[in-house]
């Protein structure tokens, strides 16, 4: 079967069938990642540019490992070393990269819509590794992969997303993806950290965490950026953590064995208590592993435009 998409900009581009395809492909790569020799020749001769105009450790490393395990050549372009600091426009950077004829560009950028901007102009595949507050589709897919390993299916499950929703591309992508697959999504945040008009999203909202955790089958914590306090969106971190930190006591009110996810990096004691981060419910490291499987699957699908990975 062929893979119909050139670019991965937002999970809303994918059908439920596409998502299933990604998940099954990731399943098969999980097996490869457990081998002593974790490399297959599937993408030999393909080049992938990792264009990160915003600091990132885990996502970039995850893509880098994913590409290398498929034998693709990966090239990094970080903002500090790129012409962006010399004032080159995104258009010119993109055209320059494209002229080197890569098969895919993985882009992380502080501007919402930056991945769309590249995709409209370039022939190679564009994989969005996070654009502003807009979308982080590979994170949502790896979160889904993590939850499916636990539950099989997310349909009918209640997932609580906790924290800074307004400025979170992770939250936007998860709301769309989980909603599409039939999960109930609840948001918990102060109004200052919710998007405008959340009633237009397929979610319920609740400003009281003790109430919101009740009935939750899983909880996704989001990183609180410290600049939100400077922007006057919350009084101080102590008060934020009193109201919105996922503690063991609060977690106990969720459904039994509710897994806890976090896209990282975590602020211990701010949005997630240290004991919760280190508890058996915490799936944070599973998410990191899932990231490699899912990104291998995505690179495979977008670079070969075929779904069945070569066994090998």
């Amino acid at each position, binding site marked *: 079967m062929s893979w119909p998409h050139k670019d991965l900009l937002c999970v809303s581009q994918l059908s439920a069938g596409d998502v299933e395809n990604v998940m099954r492909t990731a399943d098969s790569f999980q097996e490869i990642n457990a081998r002593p020799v974790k490399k297959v020749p599937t993408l030999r001769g393909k080049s992938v540019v990792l264009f990160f105009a915003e600091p990132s450790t885990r996502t970039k490393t995850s893509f880098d490992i994913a590409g290398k395990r498929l034998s693709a050549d990966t090239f990094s372009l970080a903002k500090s070393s790129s012409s962006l600091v010399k004032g080159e426009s995104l258009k010119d950077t993109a055209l320059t990269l494209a002229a080197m004829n890569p098969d895919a560009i993985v882009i992380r950028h502080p501007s*919402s*819509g930056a991945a*769309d*901007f590249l995709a409209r102009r370039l022939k190679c595949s564009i994989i969005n590794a996070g654009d*502003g*507050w807009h979308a982080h589709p590979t994170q949502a897919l790896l979160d889904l992969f993590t939850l499916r390993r636990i539950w099989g299916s997310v349909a009918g499950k209640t997932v609580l997303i906790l924290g800074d929703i307004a400025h979170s591309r992770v939250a936007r992508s998860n709301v769309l993806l989980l909603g599409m697959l039939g999960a109930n999504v609840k948001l918990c945040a102060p109004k200052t950290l919710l998007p*405008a*008009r959340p009633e237009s999203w397929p979610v319920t909202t609740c400003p009281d965490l003790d109430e919101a955790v009740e009935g939750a089958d899983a909880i996704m914590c989001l990183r609180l950026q410290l600049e939100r306090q400077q922007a006057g969106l919350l009084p101080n971190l102590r008060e934020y953590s009193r109201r919105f930190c996922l503690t063991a006591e609060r977690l106990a009110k969720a459904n039994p064995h509710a897994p806890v996810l976090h896209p990282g990096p975590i602020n211990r004691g701010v949005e997630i208590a240290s004991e919760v981060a280190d508890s058996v419910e915490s799936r944070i490291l599973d998410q990191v592993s899932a990231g490699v499987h899912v990104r291998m699957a995505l690179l495979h699908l977008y670079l070969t435009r075929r779904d069945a990975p070569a066994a090998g």
Partner: protein
Amino acid sequence: MAAPDLVIRGARLAGSGAPAVDLYLAHGRVLGLETHDPGRAHDAPAVEAGGLLLLPGLTDCHVHLREPGQEWKEDVATGLAAAAHGGFANVMCMANTKPVNDDASVTALMLDKARLSWPRGPRLFPVGALTVKLKGEALAAFAELREAGCKAVSNDGLPVHNTELFRRAVEYASDLGLIVIDHCEDPFLSPGAGINEGLVSSALGLRGQPTASEAIQVARDCLLAAYLQAPIHLAHISCRQSVEIIARAKEQGAPVTAETCPHYLLLTEEAVTGYNTQAKVSPPLRTSDDAAALREGLRSGVIDIVSTDHAPHAAHEKETPFDEAPNGISGLDSALALTWRLVAEGALSEADLVRALTKGADIFGLPVNRFAPGDPADVVLFDPNLTWTLTEQEMRSKSKNTPFLNTRLTGRCAGLYVAGKKIV
């Protein structure tokens, strides 16, 4: 009637409902208007205008011509070319040039450029800066600016934060017969965001601006105008809240006037979908409910006029991620056809359109043709049935940044006369 030097024959007077007329002009002025007489011969040259609509020369109270300082976006010559082809006899250009028009020498330079490039018109009326360098700290020299030719003063684009200073500016300007034009935008509620706060901004992950950002400043200005009994003109109104505040202020006799722009009447925040930087404008495009309120406000007269807020930007400046793109829409080429769309849709009458595109001249004391003997012979011949596409080639503005680019428009200026002289 004295001897005419030009007769425009057989056009229908917009908004009159009357049959075709013959317009007699002499020495740059209207001599008289008579019922069309197909058989009558004239000594003077005659223009056969059967099938066309006769409009007064239009006035645009709000454009940015970018000269001096940003001539890659626009200059006085190209801006006036777009105005002329768009049917405008009078154009008021804002002060946010480089250097700022806070000094008579800058005003003089703008007027020189206009005289050199378009000696017969369209007429250019610069708007002076409200504060020195538009910094919002010290009043500009209004009397000197007025002597140099400015017809109003404004901090457009960089609203004055300090309400005390703004109040004093309004008072001081009123002594001189100058009207303050205010760009209403709260300095802290997401200034310059370029997208409405709402469904679309939430979905796109962009910081949006609530309508309250504008309405709060509209309320401030209405209260000040009423208290001071000094006029304030409210620029590019974009939302229902503002319309309602202005309606109430006018009922109570506050000396405020207001404008909106074709894009606020015809588009909504949906136009930004896909990170369309051509629809990034300040204030941002709002909702269909806001557009409906603006249409009704324009029809009822709460909103006095339509301006373009013509804000040209070069293609490369708009070809960026949304948050990096400058705000603004190039509007002079298309404003008449877009306002005509509202007439075609039944939202406005022809008389409403004439008022919307000419009353600015009354507000700011510019020449205006009401087709009475002695009025300036500023005339637009408008073809209401001509369908055309707003392509880059058709646009006379140097910059093609408009969300209406490559759309089909109906109705076009087929000729502009300023003081009896054919301009286009």
